[in-house]
């Protein structure tokens, strides 16, 4: 059987299967529902009177809890009727309970060595399933029930445990729960040290490929001694970093959730008591703390890469040639506004530039965080105006402290209008005449033909009719192709506002011909060299 036949068969399925799938609406979305729980719990906190009333009212519920000490990390059965067939699915519901207004969500199973659980703090009743109305999310209720305990050495405001009775569950030992609504670690260091106490409990580290994790293959490998050293450096960088705001990243067109789908590896930091801190690693330097809130951090890509190199069994799909130095970040920590620059058109950009050329960005050379500039080595591929060595130093506005747009990286190809500049450590330094407004990106179609992408449109706005005829019209097939390639080529330089900004895409040859004609008119004596 081939996929084509399968596809044909799928089209021939009865209408009701399509109808069912297209009209499907989840009765209670798990994630949102958990947030709903969090909200409900917060409301409970704010309305203590209501809680007390609830508790008083449900005193018989406490009796029930005495009979309900079993730990069932599956959802309680749904009521009979049409939903009864969904019991196996409901079992996928997240396990949680509410204690002191906090929502504790299941984090991990660990073996019960006898010295993990501390004092018993209370009992939760497994009275909530996915169809339970929000008003019934009360103190000491949850989707799981049983006695819960503090975890020795850990803040009960963050972590609690439930014991499994022999034979009652398929999973052994103790279930660890972490609070999801009433903690907000200030930094990765805060989360790792204050909450998880990682450094004093760390025992070993393992890694797993993103694919293995995604398909639940469980192919974990221990990190070597050398790997642990690299891990230490990585964790230092991680501890020194700050959480990345999902909203702020989105404002740059970076969808962290989507980016983390391209996870390259999962790192397990095992601790003495059996607890594990799970870090999801992305090749761009993003780190997500698996199972704990929705937190992201970003470390220098070089450090992450050094760590990933230790995972010898893993594929390295985007491995760069040896010696390549990538910028530590693609976006600065804060967003800066570009300095108001003259509104250059093509003529003024050409006449006021010392060097007009197509260049390829190479190694990251360093950054000046005081002046928010980054230095890149660049190779001059094609010179239209001026003369320069084949290798120059290209200054870009923005650094890891702050940037207005994504920083370049090794391999970025640009058509640039440059002025000579100076730098204390580098020679042959050039900076863009009009900053990002005169920086033209080179994007290639499926055949490798280059196109000039004038993001801000200043240079190509007043093109003559002849050239406009060659314009790659937004919405055209070619435009869609270039758009897709550009996004794939560099998701950082591309952003989701592509269609708002990148309306000025021309065949590279046509664009260069225009630049040359403008140069010939503006400065007939100008030196040109191909």
């Amino acid at each position, binding site marked *: 059987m081939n996929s084509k*036949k399968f596809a*044909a068969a799928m*089209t*021939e399925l009865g209408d009701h299967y399509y109808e069912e799938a297209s009209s499907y609406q989840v009765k209670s979305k798990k*994630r949102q529902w958990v947030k709903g729980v969090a909200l409900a719990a917060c409301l409970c906190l704010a309305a203590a009177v209501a809680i007390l009333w609830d508790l008083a009212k449900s005193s018989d519920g406490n009796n029930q809890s005495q009979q309900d000490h079993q730990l069932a990390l599956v959802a309680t059965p749904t009521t009979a009727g049409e939903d009864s067939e969904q019991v196996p699915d409901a079992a996928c519901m997240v396990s949680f309970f509410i204690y002191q207004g906090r929502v504790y969500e299941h984090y991990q199973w660990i073996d019960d060595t006898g010295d993990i659980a501390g004092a018993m703090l209370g009992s939760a009743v497994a009275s909530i399933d996915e169809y339970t109305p929000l008003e019934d999310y009360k103190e000491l209720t949850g989707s799981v029930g049983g006695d819960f305990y503090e975890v020795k050495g850990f803040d009960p405001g963050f972590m609690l445990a439930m014991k499994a009775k022999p034979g009652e569950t398929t999973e052994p030992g103790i279930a660890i729960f972490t609070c999801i609504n009433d903690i907000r670690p200030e930094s990765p260091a805060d989360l790792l040290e204050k909450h998880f106490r990682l450094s004093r409990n760390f025992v070993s580290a393992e890694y797993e490929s993103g694919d293995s994790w995604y*398909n639940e293959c469980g192919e974990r490998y221990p990190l070597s001694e050398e790997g642990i050293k690299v891990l230490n450096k990585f964790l230092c960088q991680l501890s020194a970093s700050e959480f990345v705001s999902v909203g702020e990243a989105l404002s740059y067109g970076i969808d962290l959730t989507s980016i983390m789908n391209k996870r390259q590896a999962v790192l397990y930091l095992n601790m003495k008591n059996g607890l594990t801190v799970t870090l999801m690693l992305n090749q761009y330097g993003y780190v997500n703390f698996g199972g704990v809130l929705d937190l992201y951090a970003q470390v220098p890509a070089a450090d992450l890469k050094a760590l990933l190199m230790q995972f010898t069994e893993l594929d390295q799909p985007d491995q760069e040639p040896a010696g390549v130095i990538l910028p530590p970040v693609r976006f600065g920590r804060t967003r800066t506004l570009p300095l108001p620059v003259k509104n250059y058109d093509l003529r003024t950009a050409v006449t006021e530039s010392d060097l007009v050329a197509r260049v390829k960005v190479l190694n990251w050379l360093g950054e000046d965080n005081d002046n928010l500039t980054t230095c890149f080595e660049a190779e001059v591929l094609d010179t239209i105006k001026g003369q320069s060595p084949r290798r120059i130093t290209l200054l870009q506005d923005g650094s890891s402290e702050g940037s207005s747009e994504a920083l370049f990286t090794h391999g970025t190809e640009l058509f640039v209008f440059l002025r000579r500049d100076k730098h204390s450590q580098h020679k042959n330094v050039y900076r863009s005449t009009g900053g990002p407004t005169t920086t033209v990106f080179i994007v290639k179609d499926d055949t490798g033909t280059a196109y000039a992408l004038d993001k801000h449109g200043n240079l190509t706005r007043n093109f003559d009719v002849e050239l406009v005829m060659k314009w790659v019209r937004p919405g055209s097939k070619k435009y869609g192709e270039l758009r897709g390639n550009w996004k794939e080529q560099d998701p950082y330089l591309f952003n989701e506002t592509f269609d708002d900004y990148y309306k000025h895409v021309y065949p590279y040859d046509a664009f260069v011909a225009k630049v040359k004609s403008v140069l010939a008119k503006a400065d007939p004596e100008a030196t040109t060299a191909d």
Partner: protein
Amino acid sequence: MLTDEEILSLFFARSEQSIRELDKKYGKLCYRIAFNILNNRQDAEECVNDAYLGAWNAIPPARPDPLRPYLCKIVRNLSLKRYYREKAAKRSSVYEVALQEIEHSLSSPHTVTAEVEAGELARLIEDFLDSLTKENRVLFMRRYAFSDTYADIAQLMGISEKNVSVRLTRIRRSLRAYLREREVLA
């Protein structure tokens, strides 16, 4: 928004408003199906427009009830035709990825009845779908009929992407076993 019955009445009255109403009600869904397969905005829009034209030509005399799956199938058919004809989809197309998943599960060098007809296979898949829970059935359909991404399915169903992945893996495995039992696969 008009009911399906009201839209059909407009079709029968040969009112072009029927297309506008159809687009208003089901345009987004149709576009998504087409785009998931073709990974190209313009092609997807053209397919959806072609589907509307197909509906315009078919209704009347046809009176599809329900209307939504009827339209979904037209869009899917047209998109698949274009996909195969032009090879327009990139490797990153959601459809292609979904196709690879299922191909991996179902392809076998030792297929004994490789010439099973699509219609016959459809009936077998229907039987298999009937054995699933509603959620798993929807999950399967959203992935392999609508070519939704894991992220879209996760959002729709209120579960994690990983959960989507794991469930689909299990469903594919079950489907493979099911087809083996019926000697469609060796």
